[in-house]
């Protein structure tokens, strides 16, 4: 087990024999690190954190720190990181809160570039890219293969759909629909992520159907429920279209255009002033 002599690995940490812990790293007592994972230098891993196989974690990352949430009362929540992720310099990943599910999850083969911040109870699925200084507030879900460009901010409880592309320095205040490109201070939908879909082997017919659906939903001026039923009638045979429709209807079921808002814990009835329950993102 190549652990550099200057690294501090507290008793209780479970580190696989083939994992590498570089100089000046700090690994807390409840941490599990899988085979082939490499902590380059000066990485801090604390809390009840499980890291899978073959991840590469660059200098200055802090993983598993306490959530930045006023509801957090020191509970023993967890952070789970899958396999083959690349986590670049200075990334911060906070552990979960019990009221939000108790777990922050990073899936497999994601790339988190420098200074990205993943807050409590977030779920980042597989093959996602979070570019430099991306800021995920609490309870956010990033579905598979989504790309968030530099300096993107995602509102808490928002969902970014699969294969979505968010342009640089945008704000995602509501759910970002799958397969679309969003850009702007209000996270406006600008078109279909056709280049990304083509590269990932989506069929041209499906991409064309998505483009037609985009025109009907966001450009025709039809009320959303009617637009969605029209899209369903015309293109319902494509699974991508069914995913898109289900996602958009789900967002309407939530609150403020965010489906996961329904997971927001109800304020305790005994507490009269509803404390603005945000974390500090």
């Amino acid at each position: 087990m190549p652990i550099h002599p200057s690294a501090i690995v507290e008793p209780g940490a479970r580190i696989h024999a083939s994992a590498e812990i570089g100089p000046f790293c700090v690994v807390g007592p409840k941490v599990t690190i899988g085979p082939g994972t490499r902590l380059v230098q000066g990485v801090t891993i604390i809390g009840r954190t499980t890291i899978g196989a073959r991840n590469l974690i660059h200098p200055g990352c802090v993983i598993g720190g306490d959530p930045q949430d006023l509801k957090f009362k020191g509970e023993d929540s967890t952070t789970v990181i899958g396999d083959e992720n690349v986590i670049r310099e200075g990334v911060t990943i906070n552990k979960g809160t019990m009221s939000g599910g108790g777990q922050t999850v990073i899936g497999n083969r994601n790339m988190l570039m420098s200074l990205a911040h993943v807050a409590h109870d977030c779920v980042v699925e597989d093959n996602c890219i979070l570019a430099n200084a991306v800021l995920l507030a609490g309870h956010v879900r990033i579905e598979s293969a989504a790309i968030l460009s530099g300096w993107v901010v995602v509102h808490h409880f928002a969902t970014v759909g699969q294969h979505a592309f968010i342009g640089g320095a945008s704000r995602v205040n509501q759910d970002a629909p799958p397969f679309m490109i969003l850009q702007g201070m209000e996270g406006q939908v600008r078109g279909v992520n056709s280049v990304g879909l083509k590269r990932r082997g989506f069929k041209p017919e499906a991409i064309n159907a998505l483009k037609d659906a985009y025109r009907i939903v966001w450009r025709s001026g039809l009320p959303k429920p009617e637009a969605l039923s029209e899209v369903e009638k015309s293109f319902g045979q494509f699974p991508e279209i069914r995913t898109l429709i289900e996602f958009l209807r789900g967002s309407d079921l939530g609150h403020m255009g965010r489906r996961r808002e329904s997971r927001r814990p109800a304020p305790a009835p005994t507490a009269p002033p509803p404390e603005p329950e945000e974390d500090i993102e």
Partner: protein
Amino acid sequence: MKAHPSALVDPGASLADDVVVGPFCVIGAGVSIGPGCTLGPRVTMQGRVVIGRGNVFHPHSQVGTPGGGRIEIGDGNVFRESSHVDAAPGTSTRLGSRNRLGAWAGVSSGSTVGDDVRLGAFSTVGENGIVEDEAWIEGQCVLDANRRIGRAALIRSQVPVNEDVPPFMCIDGNPSGVQSVNPHRRNHLLDIAFEIVYKSGLSFSEAAAQLIEKVGPSPEVEALAEFLKTARPLEAALD
């Protein structure tokens, strides 16, 4: 003091008995830390720094520089990963109590931050800035130097702040502007006051003179009027 063996604590530093200093921390001479503070791994404190009770410093956070100005920090603040508080030589920076600084957030030299302020991740208070109590600055905001943020003002994420933000107001957009009353503090009187200040075409000083008379007395409106007497609107602030 419970210092990890790998931490470098200067003998000239004065730390209370129950302060916990994590691995690889660097504490310079002239630093004074009150009871109940926790310093996570790799925290750096140098220069003339006075820290009160029960503050939590997360990994990589940084307070002061060697040979810098004076920094005073109150009680019960939370400094997240890589947040920093600076003071250039000859200036002094003050933070009150119960403030929460997000990851990579910064308070520049000469600034004064009140109590219960939330400064989101990546947000920066410019030099000589004033942030009053209960202000809420979301993530990735940039505050120009010499700006003043009133009590319980809300600054939405990614907003560049080029003007003074009056108390209880909400600033949004890029280019930014005061858009409404802070939705968390909204009430009927403040709504009327907002219309008078921002929609009637009056200057700040004229609006301040008329506010109490037109809206009626309320502590919040009085605070707003008081702020407007000295606040600079955008045009003046950019001169």
